[in-house]
């Protein structure tokens, strides 16, 4: 059965890139265009296997979304990987402290993203 993965990014091109990278049939992709929409979907779908999330987005940024959803204990085990242009260690540490499981700096290598998501969803 395909695992449900949510990609949160304000760029439709990046969302489509992620869809192509994970398009092996193992994953069922869902999309959100900002952190606010992403948080809504996370709250609606209890069977999400992983979330891939940009940082710099309108309305609600990815780190705020991460901190918001991780406050709810029912999302404590949900793996979230940040996918962003930022490589700043303070932000990486903030994401790690909030409960993120990984950080990828754009542009990403599709095979590495796939390997990371496979690893995180098989735990």
């Amino acid at each position, binding site marked *: 059965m395909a695992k449900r993965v949510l990609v949160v990014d304000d760029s*439709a091109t990046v969302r*489509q890139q992620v869809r192509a990278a994970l398009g092996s049939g193992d994953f069922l992709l869902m999309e959100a265009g900002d952190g606010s929409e992403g948080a809504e979907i996370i709250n609606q779908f209890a069977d999400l296997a992983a979330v891939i999330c940009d940082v*710099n987005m*309108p309305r609600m940024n990815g780190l705020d979304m991460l901190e918001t959803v991780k406050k709810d204990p029912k999302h404590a085990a949900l793996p979230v990987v940040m996918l962003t*242009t930022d490589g*700043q260690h303070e932000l990486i540490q903030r994401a790690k402290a909030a409960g993120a499981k990984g950080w990828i*700096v*754009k542009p*990403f290598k599709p095979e*590495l993203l796939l390997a990371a998501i496979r690893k995180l969803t098989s735990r």
Partner: protein
Amino acid sequence: MSATNLASTLGLDRLVAENCLKLFADYDLEIRSGEVEATAADERFLLCGIIGFTSKLVRGALVLATTKQPLERTNPTSTPSHRDWICELANQLLGRVKNQMLSCGVEIFPSTPVAVRGEHLSPILQQRLIAELFTADGGVVCVWLDCEFEDGFELGEPDRCANSIAPLPEGEIILF
């Protein structure tokens, strides 16, 4: 413009130009700095991605413009949206510049990008503003950085923050 600000502007221009080359190379398109052939120069820019930024002592905007072919050849998806892709390229270019400015002791905060479509687009020059022009097979890429400096702004040497950890480079992935 003070000598310090001029030096900083030149340093930022260099950072932007170097990272523009690397960004397009990461999407498998070689672009070359320098003279643009007459036929390429006559081609109309298709879209501009504009992304602003602020910080304590410097603020401004990065503008990335391309003709049709470089934009389409770098787009990794099968159903390209020109608007979305030029915004994302501008965002990724400023992200690279931001990461390198951090190594020079300057932190900037980018806004979200916007796209502009037009023909024969060019910047209105302020005191000193140079557009970096690149050629690619079948097209032209242009980038310029428009900055305002506060007194005291200085772009340090890249090792200025040697005591802090260098930003994670593009393409890197870490799992916690």
